[in-house]
């Protein structure tokens, strides 16, 4: 049996045992509907509200602003279309401003709104060669009719951090009352103190499975008083902002994962940043290898590289054969690696982007994993160069 070297935390992090334990109580026997009035419902409701308190603390917001959702994609969708829909009902013209490097959760949501509603338009904000948002381009894009601006906290492919304080300042300055801001913090959540990193944002999206919790569990957190229309109105749950029975186990799982993440963050960040440095140092000398966004501040867990003249498909195949789980970071619904809109927005040539590899780590990553990865990846690249 081949050893497993897991370098795809950014796709889904290993599930934490403590999360499974905490959720277990809510996955057997009678689990009340938190909206009910009897003792089983009250018990469930208490667990949900305790989870809500923990999520509020995790991002630095008030518990009343926490909306439990079915994951990061739903959170992002609710943020941008929920606010834009509300705006659209009260204005003749609605524009949505997003960065070119947003996750498809945001881009596809706003594109479908623009397609369905003639009064809605989307304006994209450029990034520089390192994938950092261009605040000048943002200033040009913001208008009086802008309903919402969405800029991710850190990019999921490259790990590059975005200047959210600048985004917040510019958005607040738009006349007459400023523009609500949303930040997709799904990729950043394992690494950054979101209370600080997203302090200038009105809405933050997170999900559980990037921090060791269950999939299909996330939250949109509203910091201030943001007017938002529910995407799924349903039975008025979550203060009318997200219909449907709240999944107690999912909420508890998210909260437990968040608590553990915050507790371990300092130790994990320092240790994994060391691995990141080691990986970059070891991979840089390989023929045709370039570290992506070398000039930008990146999340410690992400090493995005490109290999000139090689194809992601082949790198991933041989890595997989040797037990290394990695990703090209952008793939279509069939599972095939496809051209990344993020790298294209950075001005990277398509031929270069074809040889992309994202190696992403987490708290469970060990020194042995990193040492093994370096040996395996070096031999894979050398082999492909030899065969080419």
């Amino acid at each position, binding site marked *: 049996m081949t050893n497993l070297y897991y370098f795809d935390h950014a796709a889904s992090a290993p599930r934490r045992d403590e999360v499974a334990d905490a959720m277990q109580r809510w996955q057997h026997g009678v689990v009340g509907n938190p909206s009910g009035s009897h003792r089983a419902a009250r018990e469930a409701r208490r667990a949900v509200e305790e989870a809500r308190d923990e999520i509020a603390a995790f991002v630095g917001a008030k518990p009343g602003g926490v909306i439990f959702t079915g994951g990061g994609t739903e959170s992002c969708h609710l943020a941008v279309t929920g606010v834009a829909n509300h705006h659209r009902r009260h204005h003749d013209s609605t524009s949505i401003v997003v960065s070119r490097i947003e996750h498809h959760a945001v881009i596809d949501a706003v594109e479908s709104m623009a397609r369905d509603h003639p009064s809605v338009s989307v304006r994209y904000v450029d990034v520089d060669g390192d994938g950092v948002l261009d605040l000048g381009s943002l200033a040009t894009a913001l208008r009086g009719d802008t309903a919402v601006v969405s800029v991710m906290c850190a990019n999921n492919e490259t790990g590059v951090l975005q200047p959210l304080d600048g985004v917040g300042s510019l958005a607040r300055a738009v006349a007459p009352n400023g523009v609500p801001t949303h930040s997709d913090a799904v990729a950043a959540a394992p690494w950054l103190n979101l209370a600080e990193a997203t302090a200038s944002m009105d809405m933050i999206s997170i999900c559980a499975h990037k921090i060791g919790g269950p999939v299909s569990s996330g939250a949109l957190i509203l910091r201030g008083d943001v007017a938002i229309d529910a995407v799924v109105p349903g039975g008025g749950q979550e203060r009318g902002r997200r219909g449907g029975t709240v999944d107690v186990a999912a909420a508890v799982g998210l909260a437990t994962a968040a608590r553990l993440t915050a507790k371990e963050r300092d130790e994990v960040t320092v240790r994994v940043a060391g691995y990141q440095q080691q990986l970059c140092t070891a991979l840089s000398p390989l023929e045709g290898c370039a570290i992506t966004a070398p000039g930008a501040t990146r999340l410690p867990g992400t090493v995005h590289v490109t290999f000139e003249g090689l194809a992601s*498909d082949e790198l991933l195949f041989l890595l997989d054969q040797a037990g290394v789980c990695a990703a090209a970071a952008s793939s279509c619904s069939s599972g*095939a690696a496809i051209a990344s809109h993020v790298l294209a927005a950075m001005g990277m040539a398509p031929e270069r982007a074809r040889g992309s590899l994202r190696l992403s780590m987490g708290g469970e990553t060990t020194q042995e994993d990193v040492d093994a990865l370096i040996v395996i990846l070096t031999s894979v690249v050398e082999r492909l160069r030899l065969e080419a």
Partner: protein
Amino acid sequence: MKVLVAMSGGVDSSVAAGLLIEQGHEVVGATLRLWGGASDSGCCSVADVDDARRVAQTLGIDHHVFNYTEEFERHVVAPFVAGHAAGQSPNPCIECNRHIKFDLLFERAARLGFDAVATGHHAQVLSRQGQHFLVRGADDQKDQSYVLGYLSGEQLAVLLLPIGAMRKSDVRREAERLGLRTWDKPDSQDVCFIEASKGREVFLRSRINLTPATIVDRRSGEELGQTPAAELMTIGQRRGVLPGRDGEKRYVAKVDIARKRVEVGRLDEILVSTILLDGSSLTFSHEELEDSTTVLAQWSAHGRAQPATLRHGDECGRGWWLQLHSPARPVAPGQSVVFYRANEPEIVEGAAIVVGS
């Protein structure tokens, strides 16, 4: 052997993978993602990738998806569109086999450490005295040797065609025996990047301006009608062409996009006895055939092979051409003609693209 099986998500390649496993090979499945646009047919949809993946799971083998959408656009779709714009009728399935499956995929398989590549085509590889020959599939209704006509002897040496000796009904029975969910999946018929519900015209209109043209009787010069798109008229076709005033059927003899004119004629007026070949496309499985070799020539996937003499020389500046032993309907430029051996009519000798007839 370590074998990479190209799995389209259809029943043939599913069974090919299953049989190779039973033969004791180390098998990995790969599905090629070729077409990124809309599709409702053929072998490129996400549903087909799902089928291939599920079959691989059932068989207990690894499965990967390789993205060749850029290469497919460059080698197959763009030339298909450009060919039509020039009044030609290229065969995209042949181009896909040539450039993607048997060029890029073979190279990749070698780089990734595989000893052989397998597909679910209905054709066979015959090895004789150290040489490898492509042979028609055992099921003559399903034979796909035509679309594999450009394979070289070296490529055939590392190609496995596990279902080529089987009849289609047996393939389906095997799939059922192996518990594969594709056992009753209908055969793909159409070009994968053209939606069957919309057709070639809608696809071409999304890429190029189509040319309205006058349909003219070649002999009398009489105008018989109009076509909204000369690019959709294929030399030799009768469909869509009204009969002449004499009530007799008319066939397309010439498509002239520049002059917006499609010439038609009665069958006896348009028959040809030579087919001119593009020398740069000419491929032989092994040695180049000598001038004046008799072959059996086939120029459509399910057409009948016709006796012909392969000629080569400077006569009329023709380069390579086929002298047909009996006259035939003209063949559209861009189509491929595959040569089968005259005395062993199952064996493929080579192939070339038609430039005219």
